């Protein structure tokens, strides 16, 4: 019953956060602290990689929702990618996060990021 959080920052302003395990009432505060520590000015794009996340409860949804609001307020963006079917089912029921910020595959996300990059250029 644990969650591993790996924060990978690159020099292009992208911060990739890989979640592995279970995001529940007991593990959510740790993730919240790590997401709040990300500097939105130096890393305005946050990608939360859910491909190894096995379980999420409403406490986990709450942390992701708050992180998304924080990003929007800081003129940054936060997107989620590759949720397992069981995790996606929880997202679908709760509907707390806009579907356009959840990408089912890395390819889908890469296309979106390319489009965003070209818009900036």
């Amino acid at each position, binding site marked *: 019953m644990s969650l591993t959080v790996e924060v990978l920052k690159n020099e292009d302003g992208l911060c990739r956060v890989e979640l592995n395990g279970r995001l529940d009432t007991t593990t959510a505060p740790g993730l919240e602290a790590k997401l709040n520590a990300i500097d939105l000015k130096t890393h305005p794009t946050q990608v939360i990689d859910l491909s190894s996340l096995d379980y999420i*409860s409403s406490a986990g949804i709450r942390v992701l929702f708050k992180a998304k609001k924080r990003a929007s307020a800081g003129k940054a963006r936060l997107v989620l990618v590759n949720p397992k079917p069981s995790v996606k089912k929880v997202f679908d029921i709760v509907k*707390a996060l806009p579907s356009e910020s959840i990408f089912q595959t890395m390819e889908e996300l890469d296309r979106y990021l390319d489009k965003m990059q070209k818009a900036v250029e």
Partner: protein
Amino acid sequence: MRVEFSIANRLDEIVRVHSELTTLLEGSGCVQELIDEMCLIAEEVLVNIISHGFEPNTEAEIQFLFDDQQDHYALEFRDCGIAYNPLEADERPEGKVGGWGIPLVVELCEQVDYRFESEQNVLRLTVAKREK
């Protein structure tokens, strides 16, 4: 098969409930998808009871019952906290943080029944079994 145990009204007890429930469900041949959903249901109900059911700094016990029937599983929670029917607050909030737990439980269960008896909140939840 019916298994009953009690837990303290602390959030860290959810880890123990997840562990006990997973062992019971694995033993009954339950599919992983449903094990996760049952854990989710138990977590959301317990967070609701522990966070809102007692006056601050009150130590209390919550009775947890697992009932393995032929075509469904049932979970029952009993507590002596403030009388409160969580189903009456069954509204899905939009645009605000939180309040998602009970709507999630209602969506995942076949049946959810609340009653107040013998000075106890009793919440019974039923989930249909699934084929592997």
